[in-house]
């Protein structure tokens, strides 16, 4: 088995995993074959995953094989042929059925959704509704750079301003797939980027409008060195919170803007291997599921970007229908450039 530990998932690992679950297309299969042919590490990693896949499949069928030895051997003693194989498979699965029923019943009883996961489902359902919500972003901890310095004092680093410039940024959401982020930049300009769910766009100061047919294209460029921006992918964050975090209830302090007392859910990440913020805190209205405040602590930084941020609800006033299209944010004569690669 591979000796490496605590390594982040690699593209190869993703390819292997997808292949074993029958999710790769022809080009990906060819790419995997090329890596397997050229690298012993790739073969070892592939074998590790395939063995685990096999162990899990066997574990799922545990006990079935020896359930009816007479029938099994009666089938085996005929020359192997397709009909026999099918008959054995049928027998195998039939004999496993009783164990499955018991296992699944136990599992169902064990896994009945608790209040916390049901509440998160409600919050996700609220997020999926096409209701407009506006939030202000607060940087609670800008983090320190690799040398231990405070990035607040650093000058603008190209397309990625210091994390402190995220403080005060405005995030507008419509449902879970449309957003507009307005952020002040160190040079005095504003960067506005957004997505209408089908495509994404970015406008920096008086520069051209850059657009992409990938709805996540510009969202991936908000934080230096990151493939995604957690606060632009709230749906994914909530799904991760539901699936991968240890949840606990807490009571948030009273919020004057909210007519009903808010409920609080705090999730702690089970393991660093899972990725994502170490802790997610959610303040929401139990009647509507609307998020009033969301804190992301211990964001993955890789030496840059904020360590901790909060989103605070500022308005639920409906925005103009075209607000999430770039045309609503610039004049008609602005130059438009179509991007085909991720911004660096």
């Amino acid at each position, binding site marked *: 088995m591979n000796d490496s530990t605590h390594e982040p998932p690699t593209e190869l690992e993703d390819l292997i995993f997808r292949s*074993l*679950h029958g999710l790769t297309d022809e080009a990906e299969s060819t790419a995997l074959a090329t890596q397997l*042919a050229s690298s*012993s590490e790739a073969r070892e990693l592939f074998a590790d995953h395939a063995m685990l*896949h*096999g162990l899990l499949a066997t*574990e799922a069928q545990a006990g079935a094989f020896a359930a009816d030895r*007479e029938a099994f051997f009666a089938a085996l*003693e005929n020359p192997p042929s397709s009909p026999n194989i099918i008959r054995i498979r049928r027998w195998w699965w039939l004999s496993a059925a009783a164990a499955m029923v018991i296992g699944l019943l136990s599992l169902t009883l064990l896994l009945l959704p608790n209040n916390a996961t049901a509440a998160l489902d409600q919050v996700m359902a609220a997020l999926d509704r096409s209701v407009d919500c506006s939030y202000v972003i607060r940087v609670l901890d800008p983090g320190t750079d690799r040398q231990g310095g405070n990035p607040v004092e650093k000058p603008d680093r190209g397309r990625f301003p210091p994390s402190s410039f995220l403080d005060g940024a405005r995030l507008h959401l419509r449902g879970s797939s449309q957003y507009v982020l307005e952020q002040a930049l160190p040079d005095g300009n504003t960067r506005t980027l957004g997505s209408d769910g089908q495509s994404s766009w970015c406008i920096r100061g008086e520069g051209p409008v850059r657009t992409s047919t990938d709805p996540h294209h510009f969202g991936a460029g908000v934080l230096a060195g990151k493939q995604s921006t957690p606060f632009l992918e709230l749906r994914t964050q909530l*799904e991760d919170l539901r699936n991968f975090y240890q949840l606990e209830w807490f009571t948030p302090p009273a919020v004057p803007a909210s007519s009903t007392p808010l409920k609080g859910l705090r999730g702690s990440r089970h393991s660093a291997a899972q990725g994502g913020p170490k802790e997610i805190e959610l303040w929401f209205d139990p009647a509507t599921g609307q998020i009033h405040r969301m804190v992301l602590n211990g964001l993955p930084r890789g030496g840059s970007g904020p360590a901790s941020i909060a989103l605070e609800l500022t308005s639920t006033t409906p925005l103009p229908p075209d607000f999430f299209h770039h045309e609503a944010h610039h004049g008609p004569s602005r130059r438009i450039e179509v991007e085909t690669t991720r911004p660096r």
Partner: protein
Amino acid sequence: MTAIESNTRPQGENPAQLEFTRLFVASQAAFQGFLLTLVHDRHAADDLVQELAGRLWVKFGDYERSRPFVAWGLGFARLLAFEWRRHQTRLPVPMDEQTLQALADVAAERSMASDDRHEALGHCLQHLTDHQRQVLQARYYKDQSVADIARQAQRTEMAVYKVLKRAHQQLLECMRINLASPTPP
């Protein structure tokens, strides 16, 4: 044969059948993983495990008890997998003979330590979240596709895929730690 085996053996079964069953069941995970590494298709691997059982039973009279059963069976499994690949018009992951042999060598090495892995897996499964176990059950126990699980759980396919992938990564990491330490933590 021990007294317990003698007393608990159902009437009409012969000792060879019992021995074969015991050996094959103990090695099944190793064969499954080995075949999956070479054919890259779970259902094909399931079928081949069945076919392998048939071939090994026919040849069981030749089996030398001094040799590990897994090692003996893997030789047949390798031939079976190569045979299966030759008969396919389209392979999930196409590769040349040399790569396939190299992959088979790695897989055989892993399979020989299958008992330890199986034990480590049992321990590591306990460290998954309920939701991860639920998705693994649906995928492996109920044999549901990622798309089916997503539809039933009213989640996106990507979300289900991520749950599965992270569960695998956690299990592999946990198993590495377990296999590297002299006693399970």
